[in-house]
């Protein structure tokens, strides 16, 4: 059976060129970058080179890049690091209703620790209204954190406009964006976005797992999140994961160089897939129709449940994901789908296909070939479907 991977939002395969670059750092170049002796030299140089590569990807200075082990860690670092460091300014943060769990749950943790969180709703396309964010900002607000591109519905937020409006309201307020889905995928520039902090992760753009970074604009008051030694200028302790950092660096460089082609390729496949899927009765696109990630297709299939869809797709060689209750360990429907006003019952039938550079039109056709049958089969089994049919 032909296998089709359409779950790049969960993780991307490692680019073989990135892999090749990492290999030496598992072998001869195993030293600790902090070591003064010769074993530290190569690793240290490699880490600094990677820092420059990542900085260039997002238009930052090298010194503004701090490596982490994941996008989640970067998000925790941003929210809690800023909150803890700026307690004397205030204890209020603003996030959107469609943040990734690492932002959402960081905010909830801060709430337990005595902070106040304002959650900005989104419209039916998942868009945050910049005016609403600006209005939510108070004298004691220290951070506004809005996701850049959603991994569940693909919507891309107007971060530049949000940052502009926020800073207009209150100058010394930090703006963070979770760019895990966008950095390395679409053009991201910290100055154009006007953000002070930005999270990214290597596994989202063909880099290694265990790699991530937080961009911290110069002059930003932040506390380290992983306390420890002198690594990352004392802002993030722990022996540097040199191979992962090297991989992240090269992945960033390759992404920058090939971004134009990649986006064009993904967008074409995405639109073809959206068209085919939504041609099936009672299958609707979620998220914004045009302001969306180039490779992300998210739909809701009525009367059936997402996990069952996934399993049948899997049986047809197709790997995808869902935000249904049954696929979430917490057994709650996706807060993102709820936020865009999808009824909980419908949210059960959510499906996300996320395309990658290796996908082809044949992959899309394979999905479109089996999808209607799979939906039909499950609908035939569903106690909900025929009732409505009859009605």
């Amino acid at each position, binding site marked *: 059976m032909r296998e089709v991977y359409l779950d790049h939002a969960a993780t991307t395969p490692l680019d073989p060129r990135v892999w090749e670059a990492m290999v030496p750092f598992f072998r001869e170049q195993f030293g600790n970058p902090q070591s003064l002796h010769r074993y530290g030299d190569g690793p240290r140089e490699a880490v600094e080179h990677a820092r420059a590569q990542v900085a260039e990807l997002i238009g930052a200075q090298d010194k503004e890049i701090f490596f982490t082990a994941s996008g989640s860690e970067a998000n925790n670092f941003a929210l809690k690091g800023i909150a803890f460091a700026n307690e004397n300014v205030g204890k209020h943060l603003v996030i959107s209703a469609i943040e990734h769990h690492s932002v959402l749950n960081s905010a909830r943790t801060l709430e337990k620790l005595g902070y106040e969180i304002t959650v900005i709703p989104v419209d039916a396309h998942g868009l945050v209204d910049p005016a609403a964010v600006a209005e939510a900002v108070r004298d004691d607000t220290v951070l506004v954190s809005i996701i850049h591109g959603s991994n569940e519905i693909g919507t891309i937020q107007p971060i530049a406009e949000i940052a502009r409006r926020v800073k207009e309201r209150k100058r010394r307020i930090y703006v963070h964006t979770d760019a895990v889905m966008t950095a390395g995928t679409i053009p991201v520039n910290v100055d154009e976005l006007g953000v002070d902090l930005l999270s990214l992760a290597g596994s989202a753009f063909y880099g290694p797992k265990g790699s991530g970074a937080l961009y911290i604009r110069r002059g930003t008051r932040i506390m380290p999140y992983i306390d420890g030694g002198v690594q990352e200028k004392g802002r993030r302790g722990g022996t540097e994961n040199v191979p992962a950092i090297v991989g992240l660096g090269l992945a960033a460089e390759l992404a920058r160089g090939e971004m134009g082609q990649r986006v064009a390729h993904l967008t074409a496949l995405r639109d073809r897939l959206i068209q085919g899927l939504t041609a099936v009765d009672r299958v609707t696109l979620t998220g914004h129709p045009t302001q969306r990630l180039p490779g992300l297709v998210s739909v809701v299939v009525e*009367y*059936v*449940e*997402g*996990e*069952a869809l996934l*399993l*049948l797709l899997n*049986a047809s060689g197709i790997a995808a994901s869902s935000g*249904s*209750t*049954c*696929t979430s*360990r917490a*057994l709650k*429907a996706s807060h993102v789908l709820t936020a865009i006003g999808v009824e*909980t*019952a419908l949210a*059960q039938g959510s499906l996300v296909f996320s395309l990658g550079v290796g996908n082809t039109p044949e992959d899309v056709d394979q999905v479109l070939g089996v999808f209607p049958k799979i939906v039909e089969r499950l609908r*035939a*089994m*569903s*106690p*909900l479907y*025929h*009732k409505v*049919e*009859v*009605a």
Partner: protein
Amino acid sequence: MPVYTDKVLDHFMNPRNVGSIPDADGIGKVGNPTCGDMMDFYIKVKDNRLEDVKFKTFGCGAAIAVSSMVSEMAMGKTLEEAKAITREQVAQELGGLPDNKMHCSNLGAEALHAAIEDYEQKQAAAQQGGLACQCPFCNEFFKDVPEVCTSCGAKLRFCDECGQPIPHGQEACPTCAEKAQA
């Protein structure tokens, strides 16, 4: 290591006894789509044995596999035996279920039990002298059809076609719908 055992996947991919029984002797419905799972079980009873069992399920792979497994386990059993089927047995028959999916096997057993209970209540009603109507809210039986259930106070609506009561908040008559579908 797939999330599901081969047995679960087999029952999911090739579910046994999918469908409904238009002239079912008992119907059991549990769950609702908002929680992500909903199961309807239909049974035919003969000589105190389950002669036929069918189901319809909206839910995850585990929910579907569990429904299939339960229907297979119950088939041919006496009502007492069928009522003794537990979720642990179902999960065990399936070679195990992920921790967070144990409630699905619970649902399966529950839906079966609900169908048997429904059958037994109908039997009891029949024995009580062929009571014509059952309240869809509290399962109480009536000889004459009241406007409001004398037991739970619910307002009853009836199907113009078959005269059966229509559950609250539903447009179509479930009894006719079943038949139309079959």
